[in-house]
């Protein structure tokens, strides 16, 4: 465990140095992220000039859920995103996994470290800012329970998100999906940015079980927004996250067992 932490910080230092070389890119990234999210928020704001509630949720509440999602996605962006976006190309087709497998450390941990983007914090900052704004607008009175749950809930949403996409990506060990499966699921994950109550019952059930994107932001947010009826399901978020991630690790290990490197 100590050694793993040591290696983690060694990687982090190197990656930070590498990313600092592109400071201007970093600023431009923040600006474009702001614009991108700004467009979505403008869309919501315009809608809320016409109605006061959307499927039972007020504008600040919807912003809170959206901010929670942005925060979770920001964490994913800084950690798993680049690993998952070119995993098949880099590690399977170009067989960089060979190099990883010769070293005495878990393969998943290694590829995770290699592809960290420690400076891609803009989503995290923006998401947190949106949540604070919404919380102030709503005058949320959090007790010790909510404060204690904040971090586990965010991590739970993060594990759901990362675990799901890690599992999808690990399928590449069995068959290579040209163009990737992640794209359509990435678009499906957009469903998680809005209150799940806007969807029909079938779709909501689907997003709560088979593809549990409602746990990325909606259920944990509903709990933090003080909606009693979501207390239990909200509390389940960290457990759901751990379960999804465990499935991903399981699929990854089976995949590594099958890996035979590129070439003939």
């Amino acid at each position, binding site marked *: 465990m100590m050694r793993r932490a040591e290696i983690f910080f060694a990687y982090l230092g190197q990656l930070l140095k590498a990313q600092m070389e592109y400071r*201007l*890119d970093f600023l*431009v*990234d923040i*600006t*474009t992220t702001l*614009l*991108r999210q*700004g*467009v979505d928020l*403008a*869309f919501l704001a*315009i*809608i809320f*000039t*016409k*109605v*006061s*509630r*959307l*499927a039972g949720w007020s504008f600040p509440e919807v912003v809170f859920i959206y901010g929670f999602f942005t925060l979770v996605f920001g964490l994913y962006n800084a950690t798993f995103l680049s690993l998952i976006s070119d995993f098949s190309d880099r590690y399977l087709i170009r067989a960089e996994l060979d190099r990883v497998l010769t070293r005495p450390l878990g393969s998943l941990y290694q590829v995770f470290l290699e592809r960290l983007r420690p400076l891609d914090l803009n989503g995290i900052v923006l998401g947190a800012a949106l949540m604070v704004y919404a919380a102030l607008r709503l005058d949320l009175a959090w007790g010790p329970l909510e404060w204690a749950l904040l971090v586990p809930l965010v991590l739970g949403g993060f594990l759901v998100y990362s675990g799901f996409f890690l599992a999808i990506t690990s399928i590449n060990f069995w068959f290579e999906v*040209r*163009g*990737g499966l992640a*794209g*359509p699921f990435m*678009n*499906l994950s*957009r*469903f998680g940015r*809005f209150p799940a*109550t*806007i*969807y*029909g019952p079938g*779709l909501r059930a689907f997003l709560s079980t088979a593809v549990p994107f409602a746990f990325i932001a909606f259920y944990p947010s509903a709990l933090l927004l003080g909606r009693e009826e979501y207390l239990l399901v909200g509390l389940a978020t960290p457990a759901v996250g751990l379960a999804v991630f465990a499935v991903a690790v399981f699929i990854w290990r089976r995949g590594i067992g099958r890996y035979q490197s590129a070439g003939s």
Partner: protein
Amino acid sequence: MMVGVAVYGAFMRNKVLESLAYRMRFAVGIPSYLLFVTVHFFIWRAVYQASPEAEIAGFNLGEILTYAAIAWIVRSFYYSRVDFEIAEDVRRGDVVRDLLRPVDFQLARMAEAFGESAFRFLVLTLPSALLVYLVFPVALPAGWIAGAAFGLSLLLSFVVYFQISYLVGLSAAFTEQAAGLIRAKAAAVELLSGFLVPLSFFPAWAEPILRWLPFRMVADVPLNLYLGRYDGREALLLLALQAAWALGLYALGRLAWRSVVRRLTIQGG
């Protein structure tokens, strides 16, 4: 003249062939577009359920659902990565190759973009439209005239979108951060064109401004023509306005290209 047409036809054909090699990438777009439409379908349904009135900003539920769905279908046609490609060509200096050829750079890129869009139309737009039509309560064009005006307008929205992309792509000659600008442009067009939400939903101060900007030529105009919200004469006027913007931006593109060439010569020493 005939030779000229044949040359640009060749650019178009090459792009179609290139797209053919990546056809899976386009096909994967079909479920994605279905998902985009689904999210917006549910959002709009929730909006109209929450509203005491059946009509908001001049749209009833049926109209807004059709508007939102067709907005995505239209996008699947005009969208391309031509801005990234041009920026990359400019950044790497590959445009030198184009300068040596007796071919107009702007028209050649437009022919390529049109080749890609024609391919997208077959493998992405049509199947997505069919699926969306089967799954969601989407209306057909309001009539023959609306349908014809929409078809023409769709082509013009491609030209306007291409010209905007072209200008932003060329910015790579002046800044290292063209990729950021391109993404900013994509976000701006989504909002300001009426793609995400019709212009009549915007606050009273914003709507008149948006009507004077070129962005609405990409979504607002073709979509409202589809819904048959204009009579024959108004429709013609709008199409003329769209064509005027297409030409104006085209001329702006020529000016921009001239300054890019001057700039490239300087870099060459």
